[in-house]
């Protein structure tokens, strides 16, 4: 209590003091410093200094006073454009700084995924007018193209201008992929090398034609992502890394354990991996997540903690392609998805390696998760087929039993009422509570019975039906036999 009192006392003193002018003056005389601190001239000077500091800190880096900027209005030069690439290097809060993002989506027989994909697109919070969409439709036999056009037109016709996207480009190019698009076709070990080299070519075609000088960021996204935060671009962008990926998992049916890491292409290099790489030929491609190549690399996917901080970063060497945010300068300066064996990898994993080689930061977020759709593998499909058959069989069995029950009712006489009457009489001798009762048991052919059972005495086989009866049952039989 006493301490609070001493704390209050100076305040008390000051307010008392200010009531009378002479006292204030004398206080100022006693302590001339305190009075001088806020003279108007000084405060204005401090303000000006602060303002100058602010201007220096915030404005000068954006103003290039010493470089020349030409302008090409169409009245002076037709079809001529000037861009200073420094204006488009990407900022951590690009959604406030008008950073343009080129959103690259490779599509192949993806018509069934498009409704879900455009659902995500509409919800995206990054300003739509700053997003340019680039689609590469390749080797599609379904109506990917038609559906894509319909969805795009719908979104661009939206009455709310904030829903509409910036520039949209659709590219068509067939690469003659021979590998099937089923889950096991795509994920089988032997298919990995050639498949990934083809995928890499497709990705390179898309970036090379999609990136314009004014793009600051490139976002790669697979169409078959099921659950993703609407803020995914901002969430990845504010880390201000050259290349960044989230963790990718997939939901599973209950009978498979409900969830599983999906993207095993995001990893950190290990000694085992490097050693394996030196032992392989020039054109070999190491693919992660297959027993054939045991690299013992730490995978981003397995480091997930559902309660971990989603901001946690992990340095990576290889990355997966489900959702990559990268600064556009990474691609502008030449990084791409090698369609050949680059340091014994191809496509996105080699992209990660190449970025590292070029000195860029490559980072993954272990606790920030997006969810890929679940596509069953061949084994899963077999199991699911079996489950479906089993379900059908059970249903059929139910029906059959209905019929059987009917047939039984008609074909057999119901003797349960009679049995209720006879039961006490038949079971009379088995009532053990009445121990005073004298029960006589015929023991004569008991030995024969036992040997017949073991099959040693063929003589007695005729006396009993040829059935496998276990001794306990035999005992019961004897016990319940009324004398």
């Amino acid at each position, binding site marked *: 209590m006493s301490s609070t009192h001493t704390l209050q006392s100076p305040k008390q003193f000051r307010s008392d003091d200010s009531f009378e002018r002479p006292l204030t003056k004398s206080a100022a005389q006693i302590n001339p410093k305190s009075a001088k601190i806020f003279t*108007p001239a000084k405060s204005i000077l401090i303000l000006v200094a602060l303002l100058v500091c602010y201007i220096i800190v*915030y404005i000068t880096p954006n103003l290039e006073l010493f470089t*020349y900027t030409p302008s090409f209005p169409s009245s002076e030069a037709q079809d001529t454009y000037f861009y200073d690439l420094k204006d488009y290097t990407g900022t951590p809060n690009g959604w406030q700084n008008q950073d343009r993002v080129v959103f690259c989506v490779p599509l192949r027989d993806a018509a069934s995924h498009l409704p879900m994909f455009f659902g995500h697109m509409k919800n995206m919070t990054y300003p739509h*007018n700053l997003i340019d969409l680039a689609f590469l439709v390749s080797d599609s036999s379904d109506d990917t193209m038609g559906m894509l056009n319909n969805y795009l037109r719908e979104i661009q016709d939206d009455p709310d201008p904030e829903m509409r996207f910036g520039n949209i*480009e659709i*590219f068509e190019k067939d690469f003659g992929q021979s590998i099937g698009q089923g889950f096991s076709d795509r994920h089988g070990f032997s298919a990995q090398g050639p498949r990934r080299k083809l995928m890499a070519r497709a990705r390179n075609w898309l970036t090379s034609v999609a990136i314009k000088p004014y793009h600051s960021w490139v976002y790669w996204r697979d169409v078959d992502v099921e659950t993703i935060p609407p803020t995914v671009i901002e969430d990845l962008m504010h880390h201000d890394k050259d290349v960044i990926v989230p963790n990718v998992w997939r939901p599973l049916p209950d009978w498979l354990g409900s969830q599983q890491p999906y993207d095993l292409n995001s990893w950190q290099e290990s000694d085992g991996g490097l050693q394996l790489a030196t032992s392989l030929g020039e054109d070999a491609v190491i693919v992660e997540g297959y027993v054939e190549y045991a690299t013992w690399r730490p995978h981003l996917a397995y480091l997930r903690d559902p309660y971990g901080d989603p901001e946690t970063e992990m340095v990576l060497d290889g990355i997966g392609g489900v959702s990559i945010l990268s600064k556009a300068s990474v691609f502008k300066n030449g990084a791409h998805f090698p369609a*050949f064996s680059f340091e014994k990898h191809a496509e996105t994993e080699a992209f990660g390696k190449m970025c590292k080689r070029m000195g860029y930061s490559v980072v993954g977020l272990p606790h920030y998760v997006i969810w890929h759709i679940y596509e069953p593998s061949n084994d899963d499909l077999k199991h699911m087929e079996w489950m479906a058959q089993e379900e059908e069989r059970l249903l059929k069995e139910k029906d059959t039993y209905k019929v059987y029950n009917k047939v039984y009712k008609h074909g057999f006489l119901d003797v349960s009422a009679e049995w209720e009457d006879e039961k006490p009489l038949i079971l009379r001798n088995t009532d053990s509570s009445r121990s005073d009762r004298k029960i006589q048991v015929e023991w004569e052919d008991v030995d024969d019975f036992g040997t017949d059972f073991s099959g040693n005495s063929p003589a007695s086989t005729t006396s009993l039906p040829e059935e496998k009866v276990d001794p306990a049952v035999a005992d019961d039989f004897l016990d319940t036999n009324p004398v």
Partner: protein
Amino acid sequence: MAILKHPLVGQIRRKPAKYIAPFIGLVVLFYLVFGGSSSYKKPNSPYNYKKYSKDHNDLIPRNLPADHISHYDLNKLASTPMAAYNKERVLILTPMANFLDEYWNNLLRLNYPRELIELGFIVPRTPEGDQALKKLEKAVKKIQNPENTKEAKFVKVTILRQDTESLKSQLEKDRHAFKVQKERRSQMATTRNSLLFTTIGPYTSWVLWLDADIVESPPTLIQDLVAHDKPVIAANCYQRYMNPETKEMAIRPYDFNNWIESDEGLRIASTLSDDEIIVEGYAEIATYRPLMGHFYDAAGDVNTEMQLDGVGGTCLMVKADVHRDGAMFPNFPFYHLIETEGFAKMAKRLGYEVFGLPNYLVYHFNE
């Protein structure tokens, strides 16, 4: 009224600036740091956004046809020897540190139809770059001016300023010093990539790399190179000079980056660590590689082709597909090669063949 008698009010009345100035200052500061424009929140996002305004000075034009949806069928895009007949677009790319009138005049002399030629330039972030940019602006404005009806216009001209650092000095003797080669060529590679990957479009069939100091070439340069129908093909770059002995103009080979790999070259490469490079044309590393510069035969057939393993970028015709497949200019040691030589290696890794024309000459500026 009691509030007016409050001593604080009295003090403010006596010395208003003392109290009001800091207050106003704080408000102004707060506005400068946090305000400036209206920001708002979205219901499903923790971030602040700026209000969308229709009249915002956007980079892409508003209200493009077809709701901004454009469609390109790249299956129909081809690179054929009959490029002009098939109306194939050629993209001429030039990293430009100095603007030479001779270069520009030579460029204008090329007789490939200009409505099929797209130009791309990138200037370094240096005072020299500024000079080049000013001259280039003037030259471009002359030819692309809508009032200029006498000359055909190029279909598109893109001029970029590099965002990355470049070595300060571009003087001839510094430029070729062995020690700075790796750094210089790494930056050059980055520059080339920036130019390439921002200008190559869905309609580009061919890419011609033409250095800013190529001052003389046959006017049919594009047609001649395209006619060979090779994925990558390099012309032989020579230089005219005054022979001090004969006092006559003579020619000498200039670009030594066009070469065939030698056993010695491979042997040296195998002894190097991963981040070391081999550069051609320096006594420090004698690779004994056959250089295309030395294969020129004045009497020989101008169409003679030779297969190469390394190329230079002075005058190089590339099918756009090669670049789109990913062949770029490595700015890091790639098989101990860098920039254009690394590009040749990468194109080969992607399954393309690389050729040179030893008897087909273009001339480099003599400083």
